[in-house]
């Protein structure tokens, strides 16, 4: 119910339009239902004239005028109905999308971390689409459908109650039949899709490994495997196709039979009524009305099909609405910080505790002084909490206990934007958005000149490869546009180079670049970080030996700290870690 209320908020602004739509739909349905009736009446007039029972066409002309009127009404209101409804529904969809996207930027990072990206995207794309479809069909199929059924029943009883009863009793059979077939076919289609998925994944495996397939002469064997799945797909797909293609013919056979029964019964009622002296069981029928009834019997089954398809669409829309509401109901990121103009200075971690799930402490009584202009390195085994320190520094998360102080000011009291503006960071997962290379680098400084951008690219050692791209700096790139991980990292480094931030955060930023290039980047970074504070998380110890201060973290605690020489002299955890890395490169 909450979700209906939620949707209503979006509909409220256009409530009048929607009420208007409903009124229009009533006029539309009445006009459409009356047209066959008056056509029947006019046929009767002709019949009466031809048999000499009436002498003029006055009533006929009147009928024709009425028919024309109803045609005009149906055309006008059908169009305005569809047009207005389309406007409202598209506007609602647009606002839902905008609000969802806004929400994505307002929720805490933890919300994004805890949800699958694809799932969130699907909410902004598919779920909004489902609501769109659901809303449309609610009005177009359900509301119109119900009116159609009601008005058609009234008209059929008005024309001839005996035939009306026959049509109303027989129609559900066709409906039932197509329902059963549809159910069966959807079962086969589900399986069809499953096998189609298997075919695709087998095929992807094949083309992704084509080098190995070819170099091991594996082609025939792998084809056999593929063909087996393909044959399974054939069996299920053929059944799915056959059964689903029977839905229309099946409802056709029932509906045509109903028409046949209407005609036969209609003829009998006409004859019996005539020989009874006017009525048969209290009902009258003319040839014109038989014609009208044929139309009604054909049209009567249509709204049922529409309503049934609407039910599944409405169910879809409802669950999608709940998925949208789930995001919209998420708490916003709170920022009680004040606007503070941060000056250069030291950063202090003061007995900080932190846990993502309130169970396992990731950071445990962590204290650290980061002096201005120092190069700090964070070292430790995977999962020791290094990346969490960066999360806390940038206020993506706040400490559970203790404080992080910038110039003696608690981080939670400073506006997130003020803090973040001081940092430039390069993360483990590089981020490249769809746009030109230029836009991607200039992201950190919108008003940067081309010279500045080029300079930054040069400093990050990526000018060479950028200039080799088909359109140089104007080449459109995206996360999966074929750049190597190393190249993407270089671009995100250039982005930070351009920004010239006060403090640099580098989270394993060079882990995917070969050692030679890495050395050059380290040089560039050294140049950049001169006289600047920098905090670097690194796996490869060779990149951090020049740091002013190395902090060795294990299980969220600082276990050793000092510069490289001091730590080596200690022959402790760092010493072992360092030697283990040497072993890796082959020196004993």
């Amino acid at each position, binding site marked *: 119910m909450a979700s209906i209320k939620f949707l209503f908020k979006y509909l409220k602004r256009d409530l009048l339009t929607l009420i208007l739509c409903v009124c229009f739909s009533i006029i539309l349905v009445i006009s459409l239902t009356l047209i066959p009736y008056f056509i029947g009446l006019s046929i009767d007039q002709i019949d009466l004239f031809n048999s000499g029972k009436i002498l003029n066409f006055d009533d006929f002309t009147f009928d024709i005028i009425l028919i024309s009127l109803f045609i005009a009404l149906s055309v006008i209101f059908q169009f305005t109905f569809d047009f207005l409804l389309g406007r409202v529904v598209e506007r609602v969809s647009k606002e839902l999308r905008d609000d969802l996207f806004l929400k994505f930027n307002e929720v805490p990072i933890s919300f994004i971390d805890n949800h699958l990206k694809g799932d969130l995207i699907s909410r902004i794309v598919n779920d909004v689409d489902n609501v769109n479809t659901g809303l449309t069909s609610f009005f177009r199929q359900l509301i119109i459908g119900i009116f159609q059924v009601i008005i058609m029943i009234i008209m059929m009883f008005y024309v001839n109650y005996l035939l009306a009863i026959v049509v109303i009793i027989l129609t559900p059979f066709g409906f039932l039949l197509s329902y059963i077939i549809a159910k069966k076919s959807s079962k086969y289609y589900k399986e069809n899709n499953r096998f*189609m998925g298997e075919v695709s994944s087998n095929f992807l495996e094949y083309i992704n490994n084509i*080098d190995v397939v070819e170099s091991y002469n594996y082609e025939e064997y792998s084809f056999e495997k593929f063909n087996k799945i393909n044959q399974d797909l054939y069996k299920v797909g053929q059944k799915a196709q056959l059964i689903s293609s029977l839905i229309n013919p099946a409802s056709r056979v029932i509906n045509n039979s109903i028409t046949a029964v209407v005609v036969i019964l209609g003829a009998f009622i006409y004859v019996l009524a005539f020989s009874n002296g006017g009525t048969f069981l209290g009902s009258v029928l003319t040839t014109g009305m038989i014609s009208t009834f044929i139309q009604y019997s054909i049209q009567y089954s249509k709204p049922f099909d529409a309503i049934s398809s609407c039910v599944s669409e409405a169910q879809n829309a409802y669950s999608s609405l709940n998925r949208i509401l789930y995001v919209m109901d998420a708490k916003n990121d709170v920022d009680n910080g004040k606007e503070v103009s941060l000056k250069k200075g030291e950063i202090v971690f003061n007995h900080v505790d932190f846990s993502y799930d309130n169970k396992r402490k990731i950071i445990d009584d962590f204290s650290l002084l980061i002096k201005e202009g120092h190069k700090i390195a964070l070292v430790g085994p995977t999962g020791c909490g290094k990346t969490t320190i960066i999360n806390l520094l940038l206020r993506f998360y706040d400490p559970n206990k203790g404080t992080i102080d910038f110039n003696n000011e608690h981080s939670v009291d400073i506006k997130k934007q003020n803090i973040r503006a001081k940092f430039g960071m390069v993360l483990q997962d590089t981020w490249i958005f769809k746009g030109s290379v230029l836009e991607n680098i200039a992201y950190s400084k919108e008003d940067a000149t081309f010279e500045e951008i080029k300079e930054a690219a040069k400093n990050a050692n990526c000018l060479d490869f950028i200039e080799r791209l088909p359109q140089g700096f104007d080449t459109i790139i995206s996360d999966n546009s074929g750049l190597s991980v190393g190249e993407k990292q270089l671009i995100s480094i250039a982005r930070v180079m351009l920004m010239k931030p006060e403090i640099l955060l580098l989270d394993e930023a060079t882990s995917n670049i070969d050692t030679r290039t890495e050395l050059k980047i380290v040089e560039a970074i050294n140049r950049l970080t001169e006289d600047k504070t920098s905090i670097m998380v690194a796996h490869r110890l060779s990149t951090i030996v020049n740091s002013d201060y190395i902090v060795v973290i294990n299980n969220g605690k600082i276990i050793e700290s000092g510069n490289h020489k001091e730590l080596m002299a200690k022959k402790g955890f760092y010493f072992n870690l360092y030697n283990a890395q040497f072993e890796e490169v082959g020196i004993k």
Partner: protein
Amino acid sequence: MDTNTIKYSLRKYKLYVIFGPIFKSIEVIFELFTPFVIRYIIDEGISAGLENNYLRIIVPGIILVLMCLLSFGFTFVCQYLSSVCSQGFGTDLRNRIYKKIATLSSLDLEKIGKGNLLTLISNDTNRLQLGIANLIRLAIRAPLLVVGSLIMSIFISIEAFLILFIAVIIIAIPIILIFYFSSRQILKVQESIDKVSSLSNDDLAGARVIRAFNKEEYEINKFKKLSNQYYKDAKVNQTLNALVNPITYLVLNTAAIFVVYLGRDNIFANVPLSAGSLTALIQYLNQITTALIVTFNVVIVLTKAQSSRERVNDFFKIVPSIQDGSITNKDIEYDENELVKFENVSFKYSDSEKNVVNNLDFSIKKGEKIGIIGGTGAGKTTIIKLLERFFDVTSGKILFKGHDIKDFNIKTLREQISLVSQKTSIFNGTIKENVLMGKDDISDEEVVEALKEADAYSFVFKYEDNINHEIVESGKNLSGGQKQRITIARALIKKSDLLILDDSTSALDFLTDKKIRETIASKKDLTTIIISQRATSLKECNKILVMDKGHIVNIGTHEELLKNSPIYKEIYESQVNTHG
């Protein structure tokens, strides 16, 4: 028949394509006669009934019901034929695409694009399959219903025919226009929703960076622009669609008024039409309208299938860039001092100007262990790909066992080379299947032996089902190192003359790496090329090629290179000298 078109996949189904529509046409004929029978009942049956002769109502009534049932029977046959034919066609097409890929090199495939290949075998094939089904089921039925209704109306009166004919044209023109514009509009709408989706993706993936740069507002505005564009495009499409129903109603019902007038005055023959005739005509009118809409939809499905058809046909026409040679004898005699020889080899991609490798000149003796080292993009892997003929040299020549590799049958050449590539390729299936790669003349003991040599058995033996352990999702349940060791075992069991390890121990710890290197070193007859970024992995090689920007800059042993190769020295020191 041309085996390079999609049509070839219909070879087994020619009769289906002919008989399907024939059965469907019979159904249409029944449907066309229905209004005539109804006319008979209304005009003749009722007046006979008034004279107590009910046969003229009952007999045509039974005929009506029988026609319904019979037409269902004929349709059933048609739908059956169509499902077998179209699904069989799709299945055959998928198989042919799969097989065609085996004749292409990865370079050829990259040119087409992996995404496009997947589209070929899924969306395009499905669309063609649907197109064939529609062709059999509807392409005849709907137009025949329109034409048939028009023809039947001639038998009622020529004026009736004219009215119906004009109605068809008046409905058809605007609806064709609407369908045309809306099908283009739909593409636009699809494009804008793709943009919305891709921006959402970027926004979520970059949440940290965006917030760190304080760019939330910027992103939101960017999104609003896109969603606004989508809103506009969708509105246009809505309006176009909103026109279809009113236009249909307008023409259909106006035509009905004209038809009714035929009952009053008949301009040409002066014989007014009977009530039964009018009823029949109105029914034809309804049939025509429904059939017209179906026809347009079929046309849309077929147009979509048309572009798929072109894509698939183009794919079949691709000529493999690698042409096969004729030597199929593995055991040819050759000078053992030159198992492999590169003679002034250069290579560039056809669409680029810069050579990837330049003037490579070196040879490898039987039993030698060769190392290749260099930075990213130095051209190390290119050497291997040239040797395996994944692509051919642009100039120069590569000799294997004294013959130009182009003269070898590709399969024969590849049989003699075992490659462990940088990227670990693990297939769904058991570990054993992954090691054997389709070979069936090898015992389980030999598989275990190869796994042991690659130091993979140390984890394989822990599985309850041992070498029959199932690997799922391309090895998601294995670590990078485990995958590498399986691929090494795969190469070792192949028992070829030349083993190539392309940076394939990167995920292994030092000890394992060393153990495997020692195992390989102990195989004196096995010529080996090791590519690595770790200088220390190559120290024991007979010869190390140092590559930089596509050139071989130095060749020598570890000690020699330390002395006279600045690049080698730099690489070596960056890895071992921590104060570098």
